[in-house]
């Protein structure tokens, strides 16, 4: 009896250990594992790759937010290509999770906006290739407010009491409060950080709720429970506008916040050639435009601009060569900066 149990226990233990060691390296050059936001697996975004490698179907592992992707990559998940947003790129490089890229292997690279590609350079080497970029600004239901806010600082105006929802993100709220106070968010003293924290606490009477994903804020704006959607992306304005609501996408006097997301190749990838081909297909002018039109985003490829929906180009000034320089582009954060911002935000939320 006892021996039997011992055997069963041993088998169980062995199975558990096998499972723990599993999920190892993929077979070289036969498959491509992409760590991707859900919704971006659409074949029209990488058609040239499908033509080039008809026998290979990219395998997707989806994530819902950057923190999730980063912790997955950190915990040893085997991927070839990853698609984080710019403020996370530095962490991937710092942790040695991605490899420096040879941009000469990407025939479409020269068509990309240099203002965007420069953010993917670390220690003089290109680590990330930008693909999609967008704004974070204020979407307003103009029919529900007396005055449309024209600055980030206006979010604190008591006339919006209980009508504002802000993005539930330490980074975004820190940037917003810093710009409203006139500080450079990437160079703050401890005193300024404390002031930013108190300023965010002072915003609470104006807040109805924090929004987490875009469907949530779009619904809150559509129902009219929220009149001022803070740190909303281009899609909030575009979706509500399509549905016939009276909305304005504010261009705050301190400047919109903007950000780009893009692709890096895992330092442990065994499918590097495929990964290059896949990224090159994504940044192809037509593929890039297909994605941008679906999500109302900007495209990193300059040649994509003429292929974009002209209404969106007009509203978001995608054809203005200076537009990127005019907005406050999100910098890659160090681990310390990210922790500082999220700790402040958590303390703001905890305050009752």
């Amino acid at each position, binding site marked *: 009896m006892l021996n039997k149990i011992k055997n069963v226990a041993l088998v169980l233990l062995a199975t558990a250990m096998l499972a723990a060691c599993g999920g190892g390296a993929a077979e070289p050059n036969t498959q491509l594992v992409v760590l991707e936001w859900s919704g971006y697996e659409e074949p029209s975004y990488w058609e040239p790759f499908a033509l080039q490698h008809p026998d290979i179907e990219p395998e997707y592992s989806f994530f819902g937010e950057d*923190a999730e992707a980063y912790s997955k990559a950190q915990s040893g998940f085997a991927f070839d290509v990853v698609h984080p947003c710019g403020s996370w790129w530095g962490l991937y490089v710092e942790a040695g999770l991605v490899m420096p890229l040879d941009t000469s292997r990407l025939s479409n690279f020269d068509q990309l906006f240099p203002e965007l590609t420069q953010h993917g350079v670390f220690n003089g080497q290109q680590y990330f290739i930008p693909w999609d970029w967008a704004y974070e600004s204020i979407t307003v239901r103009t029919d529900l407010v007396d005055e449309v806010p024209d600055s980030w600082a206006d979010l604190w105006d008591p006339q919006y009491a209980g009508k504002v929802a802000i993005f539930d993100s330490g980074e975004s709220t820190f940037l917003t409060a810093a710009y409203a106070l006139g500080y450079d968010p990437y160079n703050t003293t401890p005193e300024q950080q404390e002031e930013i924290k108190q300023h965010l606490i002072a915003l609470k009477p104006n807040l109805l709720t924090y929004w987490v994903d875009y469907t949530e804020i779009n619904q809150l704006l559509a129902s009219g429970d929220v009149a001022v959607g803070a740190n909303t992306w281009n899609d909030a304005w575009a979706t509500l506008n399509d549905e016939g609501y009276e909305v304005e996408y504010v261009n705050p006097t301190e400047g919109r916040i903007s950000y780009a997301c893009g692709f890096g190749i895992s330092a442990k990838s065994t499918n590097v050639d495929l990964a290059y081909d896949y990224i090159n297909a994504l940044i192809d002018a037509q593929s890039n435009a297909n994605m941008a039109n679906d999500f109302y985003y900007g495209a990193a490829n300059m040649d994509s601009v003429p292929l974009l929906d002209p209404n969106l180009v007009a509203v978001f000034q995608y054809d203005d060569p200076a537009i990127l320089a005019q907005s406050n582009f999100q910098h890659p954060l160090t681990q310390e900066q990210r922790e500082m911002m999220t700790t402040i935000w958590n303390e703001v939320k905890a305050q*009752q």
Partner: protein
Amino acid sequence: MENKRRLFALITPPSVFLLFFFLIPLVIMALYTMKSSTFGPLFPLSFEAFTTFFSNPAYFVLLLNSSQLALLTAVLSILLAYPVAYYLVFYTGSRRVILLTMLILPAWISYLLRVLAWKVILGSEGLLNQLLISAGLIENGAPILLFSQAAVLITLVYVWIPFAALPIFAAMERIDPRLHEAAADLGAPPSVTFWRVTFPLTMPGVASAFFFVFIPTLGEWVTPNLVGGVSGIMYGNLIQDQFGRALNWPLGALMSMVLLVLVGVFSYVFNRFIPITEVPVSS
């Protein structure tokens, strides 16, 4: 000898299970509180999470608020469930099992859906406001009832009533009907019978119901996330944030440990008054 072997065979599988899936994870969690970063090595030990947590009173205030909310949820759930259980056991005869099943039926639907339903009811254009407007009780431009501590409380009480009713129901069912007859024979009016016979005998069920509701509610984060807004946030939301967006697992682990200790203290204090061993297992 044979008995010992049998005992050993019986307790080994659950012990091994608990060791691997409860004790070891708990120790890992405790070690995480002393890490300097989420993904870095354990050594050198760091007490940064402790400094952050204990130097900011906001965390304690929130924990206190969440405890109050959990307490209120448990008490209200019991107050509402008690008469229902009483009615089922003593007045519905053979139909009581069917009626009890009907009471529990909503709990078969996904928890998330039941919480989301309250979004539909409490929204500014929600069912409740529509009803009040059509009844002429309020004007248009009704206040939004969502995104408040009250909304969290209402939703939680709704979710937990069936779970509070079950142990109370079980405790009442075990009461010997002859005790009631004896009380009546001795001339006690129904109210005295209730307070001196029925009520004390159902206390273990009430205690069990209290734990069923209070402990999970204390760590709750889904409901406040969906209907709580800015003012209805709970301690569990901040723990979830530390493991998610903030990627600060050491602080998240510490906050979870503090909650665990708090629940332990509550259980101990409560157990002093009503020994948990006397609590009947719900059917």
